[in-house]
């Protein structure tokens, strides 16, 4: 039985006689609507952060960090270690890198496009730096979109020496970083500056996340650039050995890599990790928060539903005789059911109208005080529809009980 528009006026007249309970249920629905809209929006943001794409072979990567080695020997140790790692069955590529996406191990710098750009220049763009050893592009599975990756000479000739940045003058950057430095233009052949350093873009790769992501402005999470780095010139900056293989082999590869590196580097500690675990660890808090918000929504909806069930059951109990009178003068069971469903629809409508305003207000407050993004408009009607449906579902039981009141109830003594 559908919502009965002909019942609206008498229902409103009747509700005027029961203002307080009606108001309470309206406020409960309003609050649920406001919380639901904002919580679902936050959940969707967290979920979208957790699912941020990163154009490396995330599923096939294994990392091993080696602590306790002698920095002076890295020039010889790293090639030896890599040769051993490449010998493990199933390893397709192996290389070293200073950092990994979502590893929290961030090395940031700012560059400009003008030759006089210094590191402190306000117009500069902040980027994360990844220093890769030879074969690093293939080991990570980077997708070159334009230009090329570094050649062997560029790897061999790159070292830190006494400066914080390498002496080589080539760089590869992500698509997002390239479009931020030169919007609408090709970055190939152009140069970024941070006096006295300058680097010419030789390649553009698909977007890879930075070691830390920006949840409020996810596009900034892809501002990353790559430098080549030789083992001898790295001064111990390489933190990770990265090995690429088939996802099914990664557990075995990790164990064997740990074992090999431990054998080759007595006294050092080799600790392996599957890259997806690094990624999952990074988003663990967000995932917990998202689940907590899901719980909040579920509790809020359950409380609202129980509130509606409780109040409607109370009203049905209170109005048994009135229902009997309606049945006596010709109401069908469907019309009684429709009456209570319409009444709930009206209360829910009032609730969701207030709730949508409240949701908008809460979002504005969170935007001003907690750097929350603006909630897209469609969350409001979606929340309203959810509460409407919840209301109709919750009222069904008590309304069916009301519909089963027999007409003879009208003749029973008060």
């Amino acid at each position, binding site marked *: 039985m559908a919502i009965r528009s002909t019942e609206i*006026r008498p229902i409103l*007249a009747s509700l005027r006689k029961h203002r307080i309970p009606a108001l309470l249920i309206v406020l409960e629905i309003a609050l649920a609507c406001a919380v639901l809209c904002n919580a679902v929006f936050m959940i969707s943001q967290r979920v979208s952060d957790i699912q941020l794409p990163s154009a490396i072979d995330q599923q096939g990567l294994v990392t091993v960090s080696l602590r306790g080695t002698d920095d002076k020997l890295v020039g010889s140790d790293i090639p030896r270690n890599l040769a051993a790692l490449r010998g493990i069955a199933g390893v397709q590529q192996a290389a070293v890198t200073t950092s990994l996406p979502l590893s929290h191990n961030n090395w940031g710098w700012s560059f400009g496009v003008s030759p006089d750009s210094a590191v402190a220049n306000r117009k500069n763009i902040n980027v994360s730096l990844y220093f890769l050893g030879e074969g690093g592009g293939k080991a990570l599975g980077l997708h070159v979109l334009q230009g090329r990756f570094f050649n062997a000479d560029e790897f061999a000739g790159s070292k830190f020496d006494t400066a914080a940045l390498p002496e080589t003058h080539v760089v590869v950057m992500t698509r997002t970083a390239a479009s931020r430095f030169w919007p609408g233009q090709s970055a190939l052949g152009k140069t970024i500056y941070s006096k006295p350093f300058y680097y010419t873009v030789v390649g553009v790769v698909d977007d890879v996340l930075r070691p830390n992501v920006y949840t409020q402005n996810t596009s900034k999470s892809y501002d990353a650039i790559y430098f080549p780095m030789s083992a001898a010139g790295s001064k111990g900056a390489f933190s990770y050995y990265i090995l690429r293989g088939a996802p099914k082999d990664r557990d075995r590869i990790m164990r064997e890599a740990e074992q090999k590196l431990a054998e080759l580097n007595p006294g050092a500690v080799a600790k392996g990790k599957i890259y997806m675990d690094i990624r999952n660890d990074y988003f663990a808090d967000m995932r917990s928060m998202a689940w907590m918000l899901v719980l909040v929504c579920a509790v809020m909806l359950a409380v609202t539903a129980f509130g509606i069930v409780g109040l409607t059951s109370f009203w049905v109990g209170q109005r048994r005789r009135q229902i009997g009178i309606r049945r*006596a003068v*010709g109401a069908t069971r469907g019309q009684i059911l429709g009456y209570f469903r319409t009444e709930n629809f009206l209360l829910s409508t009032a609730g969701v109208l207030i709730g949508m305003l409240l949701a908008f207000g809460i979002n504005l407050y969170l935007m001003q005080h907690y750097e929350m993004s603006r909630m897209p408009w469609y969350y409001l009607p979606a929340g309203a529809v959810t509460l409407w449906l919840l209301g109709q579902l919750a009222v069904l039981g008590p309304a069916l009980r009301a519909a089963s009141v027999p*007409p003879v109830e009208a*003749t029973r003594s008060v």
Partner: protein
Amino acid sequence: MLKMNHLSKVYRTEVVETYALRDFNIDVKEGEFVAVTGPSGSGKTTFLTIAGLLETFSGGEYHLDGIEVSQLNDNARSKIRNEKIGFIFQAFNLIPDLNVYDNIEVPLRYRGMKGAERKQRIMDSLERVGLSSRAKHYPAELSGGQQQRVAIARALAGSPRLLLADEPTGNLDTQMARGVLELIEDIHRDGATIVMVTHDPELAARAQRNVHIIDGQVVDLSEEPRFHAHAGEAAQGQTL
């Protein structure tokens, strides 16, 4: 208009079954004004609730306006109640949350009547019971007599063929009762069939015909004086 043949109504519990009506026979012609009398517990109200399709019966036949009602489903019974029957109860049975106008409108809305026609009928019926000025009042703001007149207006607005009244003046003082009775007589003169349950012999005397119920059966007082001995007894109980 209303014909019951060998009708019975049994209330069953786990240990006892009680006959409220037993082998009950009555025939009320179209346009008749019948008063139904009998002692308390004799089955008068049960008869009226079955006649008004407020309750089902256990056995026998009941023809209302030529329709055998035992086979009707709940919706069909509701439709007949709404379109053919008007009720006047001792306790008025108005909806306290609604004002006079809205109370009278309730059955008309269930009939799916258009707003303009509803308004016309409500105003006409209020005019007829002399309460035009009280349309916006709530039941609690009216006297008992006025509330009963609102209930009559609610029944009148639906233009019922059959008006069932259960002790319509039972809660009213003499003057108010007289006014209500005059209204019922008016409705009868307009052609409606009236069945009125009453304790009041004076009221019963105003009807065209009296039907007496004792122990769930219609009796002819003139032919069966022995039933006087049972007057006042409750309906019979039979232990299973």
